[in-house]
């Protein structure tokens, strides 16, 4: 089973199983990862599933499309490694992916 790690704003890590084919946001929500609000449920309409992707993983993700980039611009404290977790689909290659959940969401 593919696994991913969510780190909270205080540095605490949690490793969870991440079925291939669903989004990283869905993984977080299924496991009740605190801080991933995902109000719109993955429609790229709310920017409340914002995460910071660990640097070694940013280049291994498919790049964000315009709609996602536009959302991220006004997300809570966006950085270069910001992504919306609803726009990241889990694949076997993403086994071990590590992200940080911001202290707040938009």
């Amino acid at each position, binding site marked *: 089973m593919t696994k991913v790690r969510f780190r909270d704003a205080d540095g605490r890590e949690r490793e969870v199983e991440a079925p291939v084919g*669903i989004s990283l946001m*869905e993984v977080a*929500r*299924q*496991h*009740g990862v*605190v801080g991933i609000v995902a*109000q*719109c*449920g993955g*429609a*790229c*309409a*709310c*920017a409340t599933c914002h995460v910071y992707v660990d640097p070694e993983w940013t280049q291994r993700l498919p790049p964000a499309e*315009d*709609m*996602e*980039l*536009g*959302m991220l*611009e*006004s*997300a809570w404290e966006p950085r270069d490694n910001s992504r919306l977790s609803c726009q990241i689909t889990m694949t076997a290659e993403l086994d071990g992916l590590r992200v940080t959940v911001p202290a707040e969401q*938009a």
Partner: protein
Amino acid sequence: MNGTIVIIGGGQAGAQAVDTLRREAYTQRLILIGAEPELPYQRPPLSKKFLSGELARERLWFRHRGFYDEHRVELVLGKSVTGIDPDARSIALEDHPLLRYDRLLLCLGSSSRRLACEGADLAGVHYLRDLRDACALQSEIRPGARVVIVGGGYIGLETAATCVKLGCSVKVLEMADRLMNRVVAPVVSTFFAAEHAKHGIGIVLDTRVAALAGRDRVESVVCADGTVHTADIVVVGVGAEARTDLARDAGLACDNGIVVDEFCRTSDAAIYAAGDCTNHPSPRYGRRLRLESVDNAFEQAKTAAQNMLGGSVVHDRVPWFWSDQFDNKLLIVGLQQGADRTVVRGDPADRSFSVCHFAGRELLALEAVNHSKDYMAARKLIAERARLDPDRAQDPSVPLREAT
């Protein structure tokens, strides 16, 4: 808070309330009652990716069953509440023992407004509100089916787009002179009408349905002007009404929804309500609102949960809405009532533009078509009651927040 909290309703609001209550360290007995047998699930995909078959049923769930076990949430699913007794603080259910509560949260949602014309209950006539509705519609959709949609609002248009994707031949009948007329500016209606037409959908405006006709099942839709539209399937999306029966029978104040105050409290001090079913005051807008949206359900449920635990949080948010039709995303933030000027940013021909509604220099609302940047900027600007220069805002090369 000592005792038992019961939530009635397993939609967006009910699911969120569970989440907030447990996160706010409420450790005592928590019961969620859902009339449907399903785990609490999301409704927005029902007209879109669930109907199209792209999203499996389990992916609609907010949380897996394990989450509820882990957080000691007692789920009473597939049971209908038959009555609430506010004096005894008890809830009567069908085929289930009486439940007692110390605090009760009503998340009853809304139900589809029904067509009242002749033939409205023929087989093949569908509504789209819950999972059962979506499965029933899905089971009849097949390539080549002639689908007539009554109502050119969000549900009707999203369903139309999905049906075309599944190979159906689709018509949309709308009473008004433009699509989504209650929620978007004319330029946005025109844009979406063109998008639907491009995909082969027949849009008929200014038309009123007089009857549905057919022998064993629906065969056609007859309009008031005599026009007949042949149909294998009819989908009705003509609005929704707050579900208030339980509240009214319990003696709670209801008026186009369950009347709540800014703390989400009903007229009974132990009973709160959240989501589509409420009629709530909006300090920001200075009037009462009844909203049908994920955002409102989510935020009110969160507020209600905090207040049930002794908080005094006021629900005062800028509402937002979205709709997906084909590859277009419509994002709306704010309410445009009271606007005295509307400016369009960008050219609809570019398939990415936004519409700003101003009252003087204050941005009241923004509709964004495939333009998430303006939408997100507007969320902040509207919340801050920012003053802008409407003339500058008209220039799409100026970022919205710099249009001062």
